[in-house]
């Protein structure tokens, strides 16, 4: 996907593209995604209302449960990744662990998207207190970081630390988002549907 810098002599491309060169374009795209979300959230004047999803009492509860779902699947992500990398003693990776990792990630991401849309459309990027500011910033960063991870996943020949670091960053950002939103919501107003 990356166009490598023109080489003065012909060489196999896969070998000579440095780690930095492989990461730069995905990182730039991810940064643009985060920036675009933040700018939209800041510029668009929040409506305070948005469509609701059936079965829940309010947008706040819908978002809290969707975010909690995404976080649970993200925990599955970390667990399955640890198994795949052989970091859990006495556990050998079963055949289906790759599928579990991929699908838990896809579901977590798809659960997070409606939450983000509601945040951006109805509430916007806000900074009226610390929790809200952290949530706004990290919310934008999360989708940027996720984009980076998805774009570097298919790349071959990356150092072994790249994917674990990217995954850890994405997971950490999601947990911060959850703590500053759903956890705050449930602990303030009680756990309800």
């Amino acid at each position, binding site marked *: 996907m990356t166009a490598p810098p023109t080489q003065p002599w012909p060489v196999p491309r896969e070998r000579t593209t440095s780690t930095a060169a492989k990461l730069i374009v995905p990182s730039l795209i991810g940064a643009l995604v985060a920036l675009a979300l933040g700018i939209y959230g800041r510029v668009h004047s929040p409506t305070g209302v*948005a469509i609701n999803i059936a079965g829940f009492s309010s947008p706040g509860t819908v978002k809290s449960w969707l975010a909690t779902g995404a976080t649970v699947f993200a925990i599955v992500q970390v667990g399955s990744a640890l198994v795949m990398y052989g970091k859990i003693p006495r556990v050998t990776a079963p055949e289906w662990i790759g599928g579990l990792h991929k699908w838990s990630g896809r579901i977590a991401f798809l659960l997070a998207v409606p939450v983000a849309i509601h945040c951006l459309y*109805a509430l916007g990027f806000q900074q009226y207190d610390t929790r809200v500011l952290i949530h706004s910033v990290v919310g934008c960063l999360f989708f940027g970081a996720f984009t980076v991870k998805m774009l570097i996943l298919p790349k071959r020949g990356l150092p072994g630390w790249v994917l674990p670091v990217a995954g850890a960053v994405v997971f950490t950002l999601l947990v911060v988002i959850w703590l500053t939103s759903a956890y705050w919501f449930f602990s303030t107003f009680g756990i309800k549907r």
Partner: protein
Amino acid sequence: MKRNTPLITLLVGAALGVILLVATMLATPSSALPASYSAATASPAPSSPAPAESSEAPEQSAEPSESSAATPGQSSTAPAAAPSPAPTRTTPTRADFAGRVGGGGGSVAVAVHGDKAIAYVCNGSTVEGWMRGKVENGKLTLTGKNKAKLTASIHTGTVTGDVEAHGTDYSFSVSTVSKSSSKSSGLYQATAVVQGKTIKAGWIVQDDDTQIGSLEIDESGRTAVTAPKLDVATMTARIGNVVLHAVPVSGVTGSGF
């Protein structure tokens, strides 16, 4: 093709986002905003340059030179409340004051309606308090739950004094809020019953449209949290399954007294 599944995941997520955004936009046309409260401090819907609210109290006397300029053509971005208004009567009978406390750690709003006054101080989080009391010879003495108290005096469009809530002391000097019909600055309150508890939210909206609000989580008023954002266009705020409907607390109109 197998290598590109992460990209497909991304694109599916992006497509889902776009679909939801479009569906949301179609479901919430800007003209569908509920009618705002008729008080002078309620703001018109942002999409329509609303006609001038006609409920400005004729008795208003805090800033006679400024209040007559509250026309619909007035720029909504102009900071209207001049900090040094022309000398006038030292005891306005009806006026609303709001501003930040000394040090900027919170806001205070005072609504004076005849010989009565209501005040609210909050830091947008755990420190806040509602107070009521009397106005005598330009002196305010207000008290509230949990030993909240405010003592202040009114001079030429400014209220200066001290306020204490939840054990925190602030000194302040705040001016009258803008009376332009395009502004929503002022004090707002909302109450609701959530899980058997009466919660009460208060918001102070400044002339520059910044707002700060706290929410008492039960009737005792001992514990407060950050209030959800007040949408000044719809005068609502949402927490969980509860939509809080805010009403202005205004000495000018008498709302909330």
